[in-house]
């Protein structure tokens, strides 16, 4: 079983950014759309699908491609999610791309990149927890989670009960910790850098 130190090392913000985030950022940085606006909704579909297929091939499937309908579908799903967080939806993204507003098509492609990156980080963090938290011993699980909460509890937000690690030590019950940790990554990133 890997050590608690290795759990923390693999969950560190810098490690995640370097190992998981950087390939996504590099892929986005290399991609330039022909124009920063689209002429129609059909063209919007082609552009987001084209980018999503490229990004997916570059960072997720490492070469294997998506069918066009899969790529467009995935892109729409991610855009919908990302824009909903900002109080918009896919039509906001389309209008922005159509009229070159709020960053135009560039910002829409950025949203797809951020969505795919967030998915990758989530999968990575889940895998790190799964590998470090023993599946077959409640005592061992409790020990790791107790250490984790002592170490990171302050960053995890008010929904996590740091004083009762046993709440999270049941089989598969540490999902809440993963979600809280993912949120804290976003929240504390800027602050940590300023220190």
């Amino acid at each position, binding site marked *: 079983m890997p050590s608690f130190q290795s759990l923390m090392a693999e969950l560190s913000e810098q490690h995640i950014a370097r190992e998981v*985030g*950087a390939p996504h*950022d590099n892929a986005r940085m290399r991609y330039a759309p022909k124009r920063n606006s689209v002429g129609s909704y059909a063209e919007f579909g082609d552009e987001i699908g084209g980018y999503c297929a490229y990004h997916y091939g570059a960072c997720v499937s490492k070469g294997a491609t998506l069918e066009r309908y899969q790529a467009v579908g995935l892109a729409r799903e991610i855009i919908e999610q990302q824009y909903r967080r900002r109080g*918009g939806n896919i039509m906001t993204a389309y209008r922005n791309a159509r009229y070159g507003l709020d960053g135009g098509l560039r910002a829409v492609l950025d949203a797809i990149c951020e969505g795919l990156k967030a998915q990758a980080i989530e999968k990575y963090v889940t895998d790190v927890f799964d590998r470090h938290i023993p599946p077959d011993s409640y005592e061992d699980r409790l020990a790791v989670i107790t250490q984790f909460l002592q170490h990171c509890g302050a960053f995890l937000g008010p929904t996590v009960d740091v004083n009762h690690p046993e709440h999270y030590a049941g089989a598969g019950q540490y999902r809440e910790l993963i979600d809280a940790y993912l949120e804290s990554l976003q929240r504390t990133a800027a602050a940590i850098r300023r220190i």
Partner: protein
Amino acid sequence: MAIPTFRVGRVTTALVLGQGETSQATVTTVMARARQRSGRRRILLRGAARFGTGATQLIEETVLHLVDQVARHLALRPQAFDLSVVHAGTGLAPDQSLGLGGPSADAAVTMAMLSGITKIPLSDDVAIIGHVASPDGDITPWPDMGMALDAVLRTPDIRTLVCPSLDGDIPNAVLLPEERERAEAAMASARSRLQVVQVSDLAQLLRAVLSDETIVLGSLRSGFFNLGSAPNLIGDPIGDAARVLCEGNNTRFGRCLQAHLFAGRVAEARELLRLRVEHQLRVKQYPKVLGQQLASLIQSVPPSAWTEGSVPALLSADDCLKLSRLIAVDDLEDLSRLVRLTKARAVPVWQRTADETRQPVPADASAALDLIMEQLDAEHLSRETGQAIDEARAAFVMDRVTVGSAEELYSTVAAFYLFVLRRMGLVAGGENPEDVADEAVALLERAFRSSGGVRAAVAECLVPARGGVRHVLDELTEQLKAERQEMRVSRILKTAVDPLDPEARRAFMVALLDRLKPLLPPEMLTGPPERFVAETETILRTVARSLDETRRVFRRL
């Protein structure tokens, strides 16, 4: 996925062979080799290619006429063509011929012949089907189109399908209802797997199939690079097609060169420049301001793109010497910039030039208010001040999002800033890039003022946590947009309000209060409007902002 291959005179298409129930469609490659005219026959079929009944006439009278017309507009000599078809993999017996005469092949044959004569390479992952229905280049569906679409769909490695449009009245006239239904069903399947572009004439076909790079390569090799726009071509369908090939080639050339340099493809950039020089020597014309364009382009390339650590020589001394024989006195300075490109370094020069034109303010207060509100509209402001910056950010690509040192980040930021200014047309020539670099670093400081300053930006790029250089450039973009927008808003308000005398200011405030009357509490409207005059600017900004926010909410719904 296979990497597409680009070749001159070769087009992937679907041929429908046979008739009636025994007919079948197969995907193959049509090839057209252009050659000097000799004898009367201008079309010769080679290999397995065969014309169907009446097809010779169709190709010679319609397709060849079309190709000749486009060639004439491009000042190219009419040529003869050898047509053939790739037979392998079609599922036919070796002695079976492939008919090039059916309507399915018209558009592909036209495109192959145009490619042959213009030397524009075509990608083999694009399939073209369609019937050329008139000497003006109208492209229409034909009864077996659904079968051809199905064949394309069965073929791996095709990423784009260019086919006749099924919109409008023409498909109804040429297709039976069941034929149209089959074509529409096949088109719907195709859309889920491929990028489908529907076209109805030759100009649209060319736009769908050709990229900037392929047009530039073809035009440089064939000699129509410098033809430029020809107003007499507007409205003429074949002229429209020719304009796709000959208009804006200098801009296309710049974009292609930029793409190669940004991606670190120095050899490709050199080859493009070599072709350009060859072309200029052939037409005996010095390429006006090429040196200036290249100098500013090179300065705006991110440092990380120069993989050898320095800006390599992009032009051979021999080519430069040959170009020097074409210069006029006015071109001397430009030539000196080209000479610098023959060595492994570049000394670009920069200078800000004035921009922006001013609109007079109407005398009438209500009209003035309308004009101001229109100018303060967020979409209007975004179009006026933000779009060019966003376009520039979208086009600025880099290979990685980390830097090795703070100095490398400053150079990258300076390159980006210069790139944006160049795209916005705000730099032309000059001698001191350091001034602009200082501005760029100051912009970086402002962009990160509330999030740790330049130190945080450097840290982010050394050890990325939020996207590294990508994040920094995005922040710079937003800062630059916000600053330019603020400058524009201030100018609009200052131009509109400052010059007004007290009476005019009062009239202006009356007009504004009148506009806001239904929204304001009554006690606000009873007092004299003069009490608000000092705050005119604040009120206008607030009203514009709230209107934008309201519009934004409604658009989401």
